[in-house]
């Protein structure tokens, strides 16, 4: 997994939804070890920006790149994306869910993947629940299982969209600890959140609505 200092660079980004400009010529650089918190009113384009960074939404203009991108790996393979949904299967157990992601999202050997998966469950306090089918979890527990993916496979960039939804304060602290641990080891975190997470080394990027539909 090697710790590499990378920079995520967004250059002159213009992102549109239909005929509407959501992000208008935005440039920023996030260095390794930094967290960038996206702030802005509802509809300011936080989710849209994150989805564009994740590569789901093509940018109308501009570029997103990692620098240096040593081995030419596709951008999407260097990122964890936590969206509004958790990406868990209700008929698989907690452990099966996290083991699948641990091995699917990395090239680790299966014993490494298992080790990481156990660590991830432990960090988010899910170890005692690991043999339960995920459908019996509460909303907050499901969210924690979704977030456990972040630790189950190593990726340098984390994109988090409202990660604290349905988390209690103790779980939010677990998330903050995971994020701080990631930035300490040189990772990049970009999060859209309304709840102050108590992140170290965090900057704020305020998005403003690009105006009425044109």
């Amino acid at each position, binding site marked *: 997994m090697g710790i590499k200092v990378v920079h995520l660079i967004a250059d002159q980004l213009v992102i549109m939804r239909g005929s509407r400009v959501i992000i208008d010529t935005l440039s920023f650089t996030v260095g390794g070890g930094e967290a960038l918190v996206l702030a802005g009113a509802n509809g300011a384009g936080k989710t849209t920006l994150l*989805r564009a960074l*994740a*590569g*789901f*939404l*093509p940018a109308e203009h501009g570029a997103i790149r990692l620098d240096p991108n040593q081995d030419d790996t596709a951008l*999407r*393979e260097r*990122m*964890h*994306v936590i*969206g*509004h*949904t*958790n*990406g*868990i*299967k*209700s*008929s*698989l157990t907690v452990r*099966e869910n996290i083991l*699948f*992601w641990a*091995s*699917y*999202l990395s*090239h680790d050997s299966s014993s490494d993947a298992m080790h990481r998966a156990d660590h991830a469950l432990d960090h988010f306090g899910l170890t005692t629940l690991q043999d339960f089918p995920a459908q019996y979890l509460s909303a907050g527990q499901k969210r924690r299982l*979704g977030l456990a*993916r972040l630790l189950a496979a190593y990726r340098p960039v984390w994109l988090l969209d409202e990660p604290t939804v349905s988390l209690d304060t103790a779980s939010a602290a677990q998330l903050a600890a995971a994020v701080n641990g990631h930035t300490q080891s040189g990772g990049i975190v970009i999060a859209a959140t309304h709840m102050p997470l108590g992140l170290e080394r965090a900057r704020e990027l305020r998005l403003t609505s690009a105006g009425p539909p044109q």
Partner: protein
Amino acid sequence: MNQFWKLVARDLRLAVREGGAVGTALGFFLVVVALMPLGLGPDLNLLSRIASGVLWIALLLAALLSLGRIFETDYDDGTLEVLATGALPLQAVTAAKALAHWLSTGIPLALLAPLLGILLNLDLKATPALVATMLAGTPAVSFLGSIGAALTLKARKGGLLLALVVLPLYVPTLIFGISAVSAVTFGTGAFQASFLILVAISLASVVIGPIAAAAALRLQLE
């Protein structure tokens, strides 16, 4: 490649755990075929003449029922987005999911067909040919079907739309599947030609299906 098989294995495990989709498809297949003799009357000659056609059409309709689920559940719970960030290209993701659909639905339907053939007085000597054509033809059903499933992913109540998109694509499979079985029933000896074309259609759709479905999914994920 490792990830590809992991995804196939996960989908198969889900199909076994959830069971509903496969069971519904098999039950639907049974009911449609069982209704035929009731509607057409007990004319055994008529039934055995139309048996292969009825079985093939019922199989296509039964498979259609389960097609929507190829991507729908993964889209709804957010799994599809995470799958798209894996090392596996999206084409391989759609191929893995279509393959899992074939293994979990196409093969059981093909294996149930000879039993249902008895209900329609299907010539016993045509039974091996029927199973062979269905096993060879159902990959096209799953892989072409995945295109329709990807295209109609976000259309709420997309079931009917899916049928409109996908059923026309099944016409070549249907024609050559039935003609291969009829060749055996009526002893015209043209089995091999029809069967080989059927295999060719399946192989082509294994190549085209994942590429087209991945392109459609990319639009759906925007």
